[in-house]
């Protein structure tokens, strides 16, 4: 019997899909042979992976959140021993204490919950529902409200601690990961790892969201231009002006990546957010739109508060009377060596020092705040954002830590600082009087070093890059993406800009790169990356295999758009029908190559692993065929298309599919497109 595709399109699709997969498998079989085979459930020790930490108000205990084994640990600061441990939700990330220290809260990112824990017994009292992906949290000064940053939901939940219910939700920028309560309790600061969604050929803008705890409104959205990956927030004591320090990464993604030294790829530093010198005339007035690729100094409005009085911090050169908050950027890198991946931030109680952890460099940097103030007084803000000779004037020490130092906390008496070494299951103890590391506290994790663990350590270590400039994790924060389009290709300068892609769930999605040229991760991460990006010898064979093993092990986050029982909503069901449709609304047959599931088949992570021309080529591109991306958790992956020009899923079809080259969508009503997108979010 003759097979007619139009009679049985589903069968035809499956046949073509199978043939393509066989073809792909045979084509790349020798290359796949070099890829480490990772069993589906490689036996992995239960590492602690400490991430965040805080001291009890009396300084007798350190509480440490351990992302790896879903626990909270209490360490006695007199004996430096672990005295208690409790299981919390999945992938705990943030920690908060009430003012009296009697209650602790842990944000469980993958459970979408918060664990309420008795500070004395470490028993879990309640488990509270949060938004999607809670990452960080703070308790209001009066203990009535808990503020939770939802990293996937891009929001901040306010939970009434009397009832345990969410009262309200504030929208944040993308991927809020860190929070801080102002010393006077009147403001909650939220930093966002991913920048605003903007045109791919414009510089990034990040945001520090400010919530007024009295009025319960978003008081400000402080823009920090030219940077991404805002991390922990530290507030200086009021007598020093109450300014904020926030670590960041400053990319140069718009310039062709031909020169690595002198900060031409990216740099690491801190945003100094200073209060206005006088009262802002109009509370809540909008921040001016920030434009210009080299802008490093945002003048933004900030409602004046007593704690942000500006005392002790006069205007810099030429600043005169400033009526709005000033964001100044300074680098913590040196000319010949970089300190990658700033993360933790804390002040000593007297405000003399600020401590910044550099997780890619395995150091904690000691900033002399008086020197920093002097430096900022002497130098106009616009001149220092890219200066690599700045840090030597105010960084007075860089102390070695364990691997991947993250959270940092200072004891209430100001004598010691503690750093959580995420990849070492330990804490580094710093004597702040002598500015020396005095000891390391073993938190008790497994002692063997698994291949995945080694691989992850390599992923987060910037030493493999020229001058320690960056690690894999620098551009893939949270094993994800940085939201930017990079000008990586050198053959034709300024062309072929490509959007960064996630590393989550990529094990079976080869080939890699948008041009599909890398058949496997060994190729992707091997000598080519070493020579082209790292400008170094890169990883040796064993290291590369461990790194790739880790990359292949990175899981997808739970899907927040799909019900726990897998049941689709009506809209999702309708969207599914659109995804698999064979005919247009007016009955015309959709050509095989223009059907959604042809290039995005469900049994291979919704990618046929073949490069396709979907009409997305721009004047900057030298090719028109681009790798078909997988669609798993596609809602986390904005911006879209090879260069990130589609800022939302809708734009893929409303703006960039004028000729039905990316599926047939021109006949669809808006409701159908919305349904399709709702279905795509369930994948």
């Amino acid at each position, binding site marked *: 019997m003759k097979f007619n595709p139009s009679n049985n399109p589903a069968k035809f699709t499956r046949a073509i899909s199978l043939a393509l997969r066989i073809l792909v498998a045979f084509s790349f079989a020798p290359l796949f042979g070099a890829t480490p085979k990772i069993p589906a459930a490689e036996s992995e020790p239960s590492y602690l992976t400490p991430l965040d930490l805080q001291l009890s108000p009396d300084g007798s205990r350190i509480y440490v959140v351990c992302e790896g084994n879903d626990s909270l640990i209490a360490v006695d600061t007199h004996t430096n021993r672990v005295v208690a441990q409790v299981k919390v939700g999945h992938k705990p990330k943030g920690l908060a204490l009430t003012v009296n220290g009697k209650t602790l809260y842990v944000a469980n990112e993958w459970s979408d919950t918060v664990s309420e824990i008795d500070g004395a017994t470490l028993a879990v009292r309640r488990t509270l529902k949060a938004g999607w992906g809670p990452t960080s949290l703070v308790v209001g000064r009066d203990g009535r409200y808990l503020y939770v940053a939802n990293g996937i939901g891009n929001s901040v939940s306010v939970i009434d601690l009397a009832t345990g219910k969410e009262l309200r939700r504030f*929208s944040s920028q993308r991927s809020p990961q860190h929070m801080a309560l102002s010393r006077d309790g009147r403001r909650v600061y939220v930093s966002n790892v991913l920048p605003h969604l903007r045109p791919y050929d414009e510089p990034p803008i990040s945001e520090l969201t400010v919530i007024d705890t009295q009025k319960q409104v978003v008081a400000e959205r402080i*823009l920090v231009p030219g940077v991404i990956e805002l991390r922990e927030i530290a507030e200086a004591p009021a007598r020093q002006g109450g300014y904020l320090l926030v670590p960041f990464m400053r990319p140069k993604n718009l310039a062709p990546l031909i020169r690595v030294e002198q900060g031409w790829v990216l740099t690491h530093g801190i945003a100094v957010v200073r209060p206005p010198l006088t009262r802002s005339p109009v509370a809540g007035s909008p921040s001016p*739109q920030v434009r210009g690729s080299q802008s490093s100094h945002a003048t933004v409005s900030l409602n004046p508060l007593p704690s942000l009085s500006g005392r002790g911090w006069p205007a810099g050169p030429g600043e005169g009377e400033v009526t709005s908050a000033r964001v100044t950027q300074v680098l913590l890198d040196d000319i010949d060596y970089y300190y990658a991946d700033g993360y933790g931030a804390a002040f000593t109680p007297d405000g003399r020092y600020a401590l910044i952890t550099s997780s890619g460099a395995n150091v904690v940097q000691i900033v002399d705040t008086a020197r920093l103030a002097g430096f900022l007084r002497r130098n106009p803000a616009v001149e220092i954002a890219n200066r690599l000779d700045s840090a030597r004037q105010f960084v007075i020490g860089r102390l070695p830590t364990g691997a991947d130092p993250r959270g940092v906390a200072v004891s209430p008496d100001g004598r010691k600082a503690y750093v959580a070494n995420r990849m070492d299951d330990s804490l580094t103890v710093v004597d702040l009087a002598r500015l020396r590391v005095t000891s390391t506290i073993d938190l008790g994790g497994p002692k063997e070093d698994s291949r995945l663990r080694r691989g992850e350590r390599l992923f987060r270590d910037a030493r493999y890059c020229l001058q320690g400039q960056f690690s894999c994790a620098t551009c893939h924060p949270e094993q994800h993406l940085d939201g930017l389009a990079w000008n990586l290709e050198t053959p034709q300068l300024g062309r072929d800009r490509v959007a960064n892609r996630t590393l989550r769930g990529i094990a079976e999605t080869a080939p890699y790169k948008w041009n599909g040229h890398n058949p496997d991760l060994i190729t992707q991460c091997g000598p080519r990356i070493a020579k082209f990006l790292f400008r170094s010898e890169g990883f040796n064979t064993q290291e590369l295999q461990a790194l790739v093993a880790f990359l292949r092990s990175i899981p997808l986050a739970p899907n927040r758009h799909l019900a726990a029982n897998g049941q689709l909503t009506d809209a999702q069901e309708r969207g599914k029908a659109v995804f698999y449709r064979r005919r247009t609304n007016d009955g015309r047959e959709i050509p095989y190559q223009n059907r959604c599931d042809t290039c995005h088949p469900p049994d291979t992570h919704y990618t046929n692993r073949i490069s396709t021309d979907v009409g997305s080529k721009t004047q900057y591109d030298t090719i028109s065929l681009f790798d078909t991306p997988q669609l798993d958790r596609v809602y986390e992956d904005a911006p879209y298309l090879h260069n990130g020009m589609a800022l939302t899923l809708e734009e893929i079809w409303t703006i960039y599919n004028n000729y039905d080259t990316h599926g047939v969508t021109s006949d669809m009503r808006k409701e159908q497109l919305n349904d399709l997108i709702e279905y795509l979010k369930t994948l």
Partner: protein
Amino acid sequence: MKRLLFIVILLVTATVLAAEKPPLITRWENFTTANGIPDDKVFCLAVDGPRVWAGTEDGLVLIENGKVARVYGTGDGLVHRVVMGIAVDKRNGDLWIGTFGGLSQFSGGQFKNYTNLTSGLLNDIIYGVAVQDYWVWVATTAGISRLDTSTGEWRNWSEFNAPFHEPWSYGIAPAPEIGKVYFAVWGGGMIEYDIATDTMKPYTDPDEEMELVLFRNQGLVHIIVSNVAFNPDTKMTWGSTYFGLTGYDGRNWHNYLTKDSGLASDFINAPKSRGNEVWACTDKGLSFLDYKTNTWVTYRRNKQNGHGEIEITWPDQKKTTLEAPTSLAHNYILNMEFQGKDIWVATAKGLSHGIREPQMEAQLYGNAKLDRRSTRGRQGEGAKVSKDGFPKSGQRPAGSQ
């Protein structure tokens, strides 16, 4: 004891008589391009505590402390200059702004925009916006859109998936107290969304043939519904049409036309209601109905002298006309909003702040020598006012224009 009883009766009687007199807006403070708003055509309003937001044909205006504090335009990030609807999310302070070019969210001093091309928004021409919990409802020229801010999901209702005779949606009134949301649809009547069942139910003309009601309270007065408002106190929904005012209590309809009420005009752009108050924004002035007493007050601007005209229509249809020194900016009223006892009124020629002044109100009533008992039976004879409309003392109220 008898004496005490007499005093009580006297007080009660006095109170009842006094209650028959409707409260009056006695002073108007107007905002035009002359004192800071960017365009005289004001389409919509939202009150957020002491802040008043006004949407104009050329941007968004913030008024604080009786002054224009700030004007926002497309240069500030607003998605389009023509602002047709504003809603405040009382839970987080965000402002949602419907324009003729998309939807803007104003939060923390920054605008975030949603358009038909960049989001699931049904259409960029927006007439109304409302916030209900995590939902942002948007009335567009192509139907209704709803953004769930907690999930990012957009849902749309139009003639393709809902009982929209016409999709051109003008207004939205969340009614959480009764689990409903009401929509005003130009040519499509009033549509009721049931939150629990996720269903839409249309209310059109009763026989579905004539477009208008044939008998006074048989149904929706006309299917051209220009806006809608829900009164949480009485649980009544009010719709404005270009052919009269309509109220729906969940069972019965209560329709009002100029011919049998004190309504200024049957051409109504928007209703508003709270307590016993029902307001109608018409093309010939602003009308107020005391629903309990069926007493009407209409505010107009006297085109000859610019003074305010206050026309009271008593339950027995007799009228009393008072004259106030200040007036609405214009008689073509597009919308209004409450701010405590004050009201704010969007007109085609400026923004008006209506203020109640008990002393001035007493003077106006006193000046008119108003005696309700004496007006009965004197068909068509209004109470007398002084020639210039001001209190006989000649004292103009402070701030009058």
